[in-house]
């Protein structure tokens, strides 16, 4: 890709001429860039994860969540269909749902008692005819024209996605080959086990790159390598969809292939710490419940969703940007509706491995924040993303590659309309 020049009102940003193998640090700090992302990416042609069907199992159930900065409501109506609606009254913009979850017959704004059905259509506006012939709304007021803003909704294997755009391709087309990684895990009806939300003081993209980055996994996260859950020498692969927006990696434990390179490198790596033995290794006991030997699968869809299988720990992660310098990461842990008590206990025990207190993964939030601090004001410097090569294809299916990160920045620049200038 050739040089991309980005113009803003009063300043000019220049993307490095190397294209998607470099990321200038202003992209993590600039408030104008952040504002443009809300429009071009979060309200653009992408599907955003909003929750699990299992979170709104019955008619009248709702969940309050966010797409980008925008608060939205996921509802299930009387017919059982799902709706995603902007959580903002069509009248004066007050927030309608204030609870994370609830059950209602209608959506009701407390400010002036405008109420909507579960599809988001306006049903009633208080005193719309005024009182004793005075006040009220004009004669041409029509309830039909004042509903809540509705998004397109699509579901797949119990996951619910929504998009603001009418031109986003159908969900399954958009997911492409990465859909099979979702299908592999979400085989049956789900049951939510709980939530964990992390406030990360770093730009959302610093986190989004992290689960796309298979290079770091076995290096930064000592726990993986030391206990054999995932090592570079094990059978592993990577699948990208044809656009390069989405990716998943997997590793099969117990498939060590001896290699002199691996033995030499790991003696130098901090992550291969043979002194570390667990007194109670039951936390690592897992069952090959999908019957394919995959011990870890990390799946990322652009720009804000992760599905993980770490042994028998299953969770979604939803990334919510909160300004250029912060993001929320919402982990939803789940099992299957037909899990027995022992299986549930195993999943709960393995929940110790990931999340905000995860013995494997606490490092990720720490690294994102250290990157953000090191970016400083973002005026200088750029990252170097050539592991595996310099193109979108190079690196192939190797985990020792930054191919999925190059593909992210390629798509990001296109979404931001920066490649044409």
């Amino acid at each position, binding site marked *: 890709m050739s040089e991309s020049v980005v113009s803003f009102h009063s300043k000019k940003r220049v993307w490095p001429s190397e294209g998607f193998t470099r990321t200038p640090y202003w992209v993590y700090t600039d408030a104008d860039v952040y504002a443009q992302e809300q429009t071009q990416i979060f309200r653009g042609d992408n599907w955003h994860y909003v929750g699990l069907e299992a979170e709104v199992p019955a008619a009248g159930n709702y969940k309050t969540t966010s797409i980008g900065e925008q608060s939205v409501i996921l509802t299930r109506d009387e017919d059982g269909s799902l709706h995603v609606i902007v959580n903002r009254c069509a009248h004066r913009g007050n927030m309608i749902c204030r609870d*994370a*979850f609830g059950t209602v017959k209608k959506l009701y704004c407390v400010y002036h008692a405008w109420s909507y059905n579960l599809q988001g259509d306006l049903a009633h506006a208080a005193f719309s005819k005024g009182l004793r012939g005075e006040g009220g709304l004009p004669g041409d007021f029509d309830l039909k024209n004042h509903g809540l803003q509705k998004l397109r909704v699509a579901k797949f294997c119990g996951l619910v996605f929504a998009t603001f755009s009418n031109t986003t391709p159908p969900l399954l087309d958009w997911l492409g080959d990465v859909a099979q990684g979702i299908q592999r895990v979400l085989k049956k009806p789900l049951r*939510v*086990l*709980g*939530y*964990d*939300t*992390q*406030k*990360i*003081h770093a730009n959302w993209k610093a986190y989004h790159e992290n689960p796309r980055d298979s290079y770091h996994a076995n290096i*930064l996260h*000592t*726990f993986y390598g*030391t206990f054999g859950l995932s090592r570079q020498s094990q059978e592993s692969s990577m699948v990208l969809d044809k656009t390069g927006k989405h990716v998943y990696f997997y590793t099969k434990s117990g498939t060590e292939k001896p290699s002199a390179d691996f033995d030499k490198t790991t003696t130098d790596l901090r992550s291969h*710490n043979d*002194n*570390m033995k*667990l*007194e*109670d290794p*039951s*936390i690592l006991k897992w069952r090959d419940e999908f019957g394919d030997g995959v011990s870890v699968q990390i799946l990322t869809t652009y720009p804000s969703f992760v599905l993980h299988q770490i042994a028998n720990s299953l969770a979604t992660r939803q990334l919510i940007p909160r300004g250029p310098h912060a993001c*929320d990461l919402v982990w939803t*842990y789940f099992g299957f509706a037909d899990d027995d008590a022992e299986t*549930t206990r195993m999943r*709960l*025990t393995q*929940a*110790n491995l990931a*999340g*905000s*207190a995860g*013995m494997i993964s*606490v*490092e990720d*939030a*720490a*690294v994102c*924040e*250290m990157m953000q601090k090191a970016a400083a004001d973002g005026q200088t410097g750029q990252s170097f993303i050539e592991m595996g090569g310099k193109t979108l294809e190079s690196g192939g299916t190797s985990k020792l590659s930054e191919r999925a990160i190059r593909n992210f920045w390629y798509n990001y620049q296109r979404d931001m309309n920066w490649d044409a200038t």
Partner: protein
Amino acid sequence: MSPELQHRAIENLIFEWARAIDEDRVEDIVDLMLDTGTYKVQSRFNHDRQLPMAIIDCQSAAQLRDRIRSMRIANVYEPHHYRHMVSGVQVIASEDQTHQVRSNYLIIRTMDLDGDMKIFSTGQCRDEIIFTDNGPSFKSRHFLYDSRFIETLLVIPI
């Protein structure tokens, strides 16, 4: 033991736990619990909804020791320390030598590098404390944190 002395011993056990962590003797907290004791840190959000997932869920003293060893050897994070404020220690039920105890906690986290101080966590402790020949021990510690958020990460046990 008089009820008054017993209450003091219970309070002291809770204070010992907090002080060991704040003085960076985190390993010592494991000695305050039974080998079969449990230690959980769970959001009030999950607990209120009868959702069982806890961000720390140690089913034995050994699992807590492993977590502390992981913190010392494996995990990467910006160096920081805690200060615990503990208040309102109340015994709400007793049966034989086992007492159900409630207390409030507030933890201020201070970062070593830039000195940044923040309220890191606050909530309620629900403890089951048992008196044996060796004095009081935690049979279970259940921290319920009020915010559904964790600031960055929780690696030092609370």
